């Protein structure tokens, strides 16, 4: 899975949860850049990502995600571990 592909997939999940088709994400997008993304629906987004990729993040990993790039890297790391 490439980094671009994971951003595309994650963007789709964001659009579904936040009900906003205009969302465009990049590696540097943060909670401040997306209008409807707040700490309340952040939980739903994380749960949806975990469900989509069939992975489970550790709490410490989740707390250290600062932007979408970190989130994608976290997903890729988990996927690689799954494939070993």
């Amino acid at each position, binding site marked *: 899975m490439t980094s671009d592909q994971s951003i595309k997939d994650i963007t789709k999940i964001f659009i579904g949860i936040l*009900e906003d088709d205009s969302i465009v994400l990049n590696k540097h997008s943060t909670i401040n850049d997306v209008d409807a993304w*707040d*700490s*309340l629906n*952040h*939980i*739903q987004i*994380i*749960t949806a990502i975990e469900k989509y990729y069939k992975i489970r993040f550790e*709490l*410490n990993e*989740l*707390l*250290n995600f600062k932007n979408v790039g970190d989130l994608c890297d976290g997903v890729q790391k988990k996927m690689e571990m799954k494939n070993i």
Partner: protein
Amino acid sequence: MLFTSIVYFLFLGSSLLGYYLLPSKYRVYYIIIVSALFYMYVKPSYLLLIAFIIISNYALGIQIEKSSYRHQKSRFLSISLLINLGILIFFKYWNFIIENVFQLIGLFSAKSTTSPPFLDVILPIGLSYYIFQIISYNIDIYRGTIKAEKNIFHFGTFVLFFPKLLVGPIERANLFLPQLKKSISFDKENIIEGGKRIAWGLFKKLVVADRISIFQTAVFAQQGQSGSTLFFATILYTFQVYADFSGYTDIALGTARMFGFNLMENFKRPLLAINMSDFWRRWHISLSSWVNDYIFNPLALNHRQWGKWAVFYALIISFTVIGIWHGASWNYILFGLLQAIALIYETITKRIRKKISKKMRRVIYHNISILFTFLFVTFSLIIFRSTTFVEAMNIIDGIFSNPGSFYSDGVSTFLFLIIGCGIMMIYDIQEEFKICSFSFFSNKNWVIQQASYAVLIIYILIAGVFDGGQFIYFAF
């Protein structure tokens, strides 16, 4: 030392002079000494307490970072939490806990002869602010998001820096400590911009908050005020708390700027919030973001399998902490719970509200939202200000059931109140919506900008209350 007193400005002027006359490598030590003197002015013996807090947390921060294993890191973090929360509970919450435990025991046992072991200690000013700041520092090291500070003087400055020592903002180490690594040279822009910020702070505190305070004292000194008077006083209290606390913050940020430091913003036009979630992103930001990062997110993410219930649970705990942070009293806990209920309501009704908003004209929906949010904040502040639940109920009851004539102690009082609140809110509205392209205070024309500040200072001298009114948030 009040930020609005002459003594403070003499202290500020002389300490600034010494600061810029010294070679830059000595300035950190100088700031520590000046900050220690500032704190000693409040109560000298508490300097020992803060010195103990600095030394122990400095050492623990390094130990957390140095530990190779997770369980070792956890152990040192637990020790630091035990020390910091222990001190906070001892000074701030001990009597409240003991009183309630004894009352609970009294409910089950017929007769109790032992009297509760109350403590007779004065809460060190600023304790809740700097303890929260240090807790976040150690958690950040534990999480690996910052490095432990190796220079004890830098760490000491992070805790002691006097502009933020007594009433915040609750600064973050990753924003403050890097500023100490840079060499700060004299920049007249820092002095001018800092001075302007202080002028705004003085206006909010002396002209708005303290003027309203006189009206509040007069109204609540008499029993049986009419509903309209109580309603007006209740509305004004919201402006008073905002002007008082954000005014203090402006003076703190302005002072820090004069020394070449940027502290985090604590307010972002909160009275123009469109809902309570929005309000808490704009009000006392350094506390709400702290609670978000160290309580809400860990709790909600850890229980994310519960779905929305995880959010509700985390909201209740987080806002109970925000409530009790303000003081050891049930009214603050109730205030916090009210905020949690409002946010849970907003989470549940998000879709419905979105649908309604699409059916209305945007400007109408927006303004109605601001009005409802303002009224809810005002209502919750009735609980916040009342020492007992009965007192709060009396105010609410009085507003709705007590017709009568409106209390007035002169036209000039009203005029000063309206002008003060008006200027403060027009400034915020302009900053938020950029309605008018012309601006007095940020005009590109130097003469207009300086003249605006000159008029502001003259107005402070005419309409300000100079009898040394205490800041409301000093109590926390």
